[in-house]
């Protein structure tokens, strides 16, 4: 099955002499075209889950399959090139590169793989136009509003055309009108391009746009809806 599958994943952190279980036996599967949300209090393990699903962290126990590839045994170098081709991260607004214009934010991702092709430039422009940024291609992050910045971050996550999209509190620094806009747009792109998408949020109002909602509590994941 394509998409994202976590099987009985446990993640323990050593803190001095004791170990903290940030994730306890978590299983989750997200199909292509599915947009799910994870909510839960701060410190419950949401970011840890997202990091493991996004090949940033290795699980202590269990399996992680992205597009049928088991990333559990990969080395640091393989993980970074895997992230480049198979994962799309939507990060905080502050995570754009300040000296790149909107189009270059996307082309940077292509650049990391090698030469930028004309096809990639066309795709990047189409994505940005889709997200209503067609007129802002040569603007720098400090010239954009918070909502526009977040839409650039969304476009950047889609530009490598990976099958898995992961978003960590994408609406954290936005007012509610903008937040609704942004989440709707993520949903639109996920459905349009048939991605498996996970969004971590603590904003309950965003849940109406998601197909499933999971709740994380002390490292335990349960399906809520």
């Amino acid at each position, binding site marked *: 099955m394509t998409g994202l599958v976590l099987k009985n994943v446990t993640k323990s952190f050593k803190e001095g002499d004791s170990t903290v279980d940030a994730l306890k036996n978590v299983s989750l599967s997200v199909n292509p075209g599915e947009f799910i949300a994870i909510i839960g209090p701060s410190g419950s393990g*949401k*970011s*840890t889950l*997202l*990091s493991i699903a*996004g090949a*940033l*962290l290795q699980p202590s126990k269990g399996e992680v399959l992205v597009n049928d590839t088991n990333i559990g045994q990969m080395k640091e*170098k393989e993980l*970074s*090139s*895997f*992230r*480049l*081709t198979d*994962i799309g*991260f939507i*990060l*905080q607004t*502050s*995570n754009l*590169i*300040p*000296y*790149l214009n909107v189009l*270059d934010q996307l*082309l*940077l*991702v292509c*650049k*990391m793989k090698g030469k930028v092709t004309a096809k990639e430039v066309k795709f990047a422009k189409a994505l940005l136009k889709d997200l209503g940024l067609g007129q802002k291609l040569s603007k*720098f992050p400090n010239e954009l509003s918070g909502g526009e910045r977040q839409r650039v971050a969304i476009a*950047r996550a889609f530009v*490598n055309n990976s099958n898995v999209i992961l978003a*960590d*509190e994408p609406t*954290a*620094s936005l007012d509610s009108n903008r937040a609704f806009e942004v989440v709707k747009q993520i949903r639109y792109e996920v459905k349009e391009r048939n991605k498996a998408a996970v969004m971590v949020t603590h904003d309950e109002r965003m849940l109406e746009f998601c197909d499933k909602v999971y709740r994380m509590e002390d490292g335990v994941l349960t399906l809520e809806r």
Partner: protein
Amino acid sequence: MFLAIKEMKHSKTRFAMIGAIIMLIAWLVFILSGLGNGLSTLAAATMKNIDGDLFIYEEGSEGTMMKTKVSGAIADDIEGKYGVKEAAKFGQSTIIVHNPKITDSKVNEDVAFLGIEPGKFIEPKVIEGKQLSNDNLFGVVIDESLADKGYSIGDKFEVTSSDITLEVVGITKGETFNHLPTVFVNVETWQSYAFAAPGSDNGLESPVAMIALQGENVDADAIASNYDAIETVTKSDAIMGMPGYKEESATIYMMLAFLFAISAVIIAVFFYVFILQKTQQFGVMKAIGASDRFIKNSIISQVFVLSLGSIIAGIGLTYLTALVFPEGMPFNLDFKMVLIYAVVLLIVSVLGSVISARQVTKIDPLTAIGRVE
């Protein structure tokens, strides 16, 4: 390169400032090398101009000009043997001369008094007047620097502390010796001056300071073993043996070495701070999938472009400065040397950035996740 150029375009002031510092360092390096070159040329111009392949000095003098005395008979004997095509006698003393024509306060001049054989390869070409000849033993060829002080062709001047009077017959240029203007004279006249005191010739036949040899394959070992009380010295050793030459060059090379080290440290520190400031950004790039190499390459290529531009600007600045240097300043830019120092400086600064860029490996991509700011 993509990131490097975009960032420099975006933060022009910041990079212009670092560029300016690199440019000033490069400028200092080139000025210093030009001065060093000029000084050593001045110190040893005559020695450098002598187109000799090998030099005969007194045994134990270690190629030091001030300490040597050899028999001039060797020069007459050695031609045609051991691969020697031509042998030229050379004598040197420092004398004080007085030109009655000049009446201002500084009437006496220190000069290098050099005895040579007319017609031999070490004789400099005159730019004005006549060459030396065996017919006029007291006719001399003087360097331009002495002519600048008022000496001209036809002048008769005295050698103080002796009763010799010399006459200027020709003027040559670019011939200074131990920072002094030169006065070339027939070697016989020089001998009668230098060994005026009885017994000062150590019993040598026709004593001179040293003998310069020319030839395709001069056999140094054979020469050393066939003549008594001599040693053979290569040209570069002979130049090193000029009084003060080694010390002067060492001082300048020392300063250059420090400059190179300092520029490496400055660049390394600058970019270390830059990378620290950009930890968050690099974390994001790594989370998206950038390899360490991608980020390091962009840092190093940035330093390369910046240093290259700054060093070229530094070269331009150096040549501009050279234009306004006062005449007579011992400044001599050798383009080949400028090029070599430019390349060394470039390598050194890129190495500095390579050292700083190593810390990129330590940046954790996890810093990009789970941060709500």
